[in-house]
């Protein structure tokens, strides 16, 4: 349970950082919003994937050991 919390914490930090970076970039260069959104979503996806992996895969692996 605590592990889930830690994972969520890390993912939240990561998502916040990505959002922060994307928003900063967008406000600096409004004409690049389209590209930034695409890249931001990709980064979101990877951060989210880490969380999903930790939730769904890690318990199984640890139990199997």
């Amino acid at each position: 349970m605590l592990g889930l919390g830690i994972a969520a914490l890390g993912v939240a930090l990561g998502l916040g950082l990505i959002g922060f970076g994307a928003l900063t970039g967008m406000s600096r260069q409004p004409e690049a919003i389209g590209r930034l959104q695409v890249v931001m979503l990709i980064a979101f996806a990877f951060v989210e994937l880490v969380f999903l992996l930790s939730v769904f895969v890690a318990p199984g692996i640890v139990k199997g050991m």
Partner: protein
Amino acid sequence: MGGLFTLGSSLIAEAEQTHEGLSYLGLWVNVLFVLAILFGLMSYAKKGLNERVFKNPITQGFEQVYLFIENMCVVIIGNHGRKYVPMVMVLWLVIFTGNIVALFLGESPTADLSFNFAMALIAVGYVQYEGVRANGLFGHVKHFAGPKLGGVLVIISGLIFVVELISEVLKNVSLSLRLFGNIHGGHVAVESMNKLGEPILVPYGMFLLPIKLLTCVVQAMIFTLLTCVYISLVTHHEEGHGERHAPAAAH
């Protein structure tokens, strides 16, 4: 430490008691249901296709989707990305319809890991096929080895090759697990929030509907977007476009 993970897995197991995966027949029923909806919409939209201006709202919606995906393909893959539009659009439509079904029903194909894994296998397999077709078999395999290195650094090339192979397999897992986790996780979240509001008879889970709707669109988009990125990675060496996406995709 072990207790921690047993706790986590027991939590998931508890969730699984309410949501064990679909049976074989159940998945078939769900898939056919989704496909029936999809084909019904498409045949309805096809009627409005012959007008000069699309007045049929369903047709307009499909047109928007088509233009969006075409734009995505052209931006990410490049000028030759237009020929991948049908494949990407089919993926998008299936995932989106499945997600919308998952909004209202407890089960849906996209909430089933096996179905998502099948989709991811198809997508990544198609990417490999395109890579082989674009670079030749040898060129495609060589692409895994990364940049050309001489002398002792060949060992590093071999390492990169192995890492790339693993990442190629992980693409499947990441694509399918992401979709599964989001849709299925949405279900679990709704269930647990409903359980939370049970004593006062308020279905809290329903308040998650807007964010789940957002998830539907975003997940369909991310799946197709990553497929586009993978395609652009394997078909785009000569224009130096793929290198920019490489750090993003080499997870």
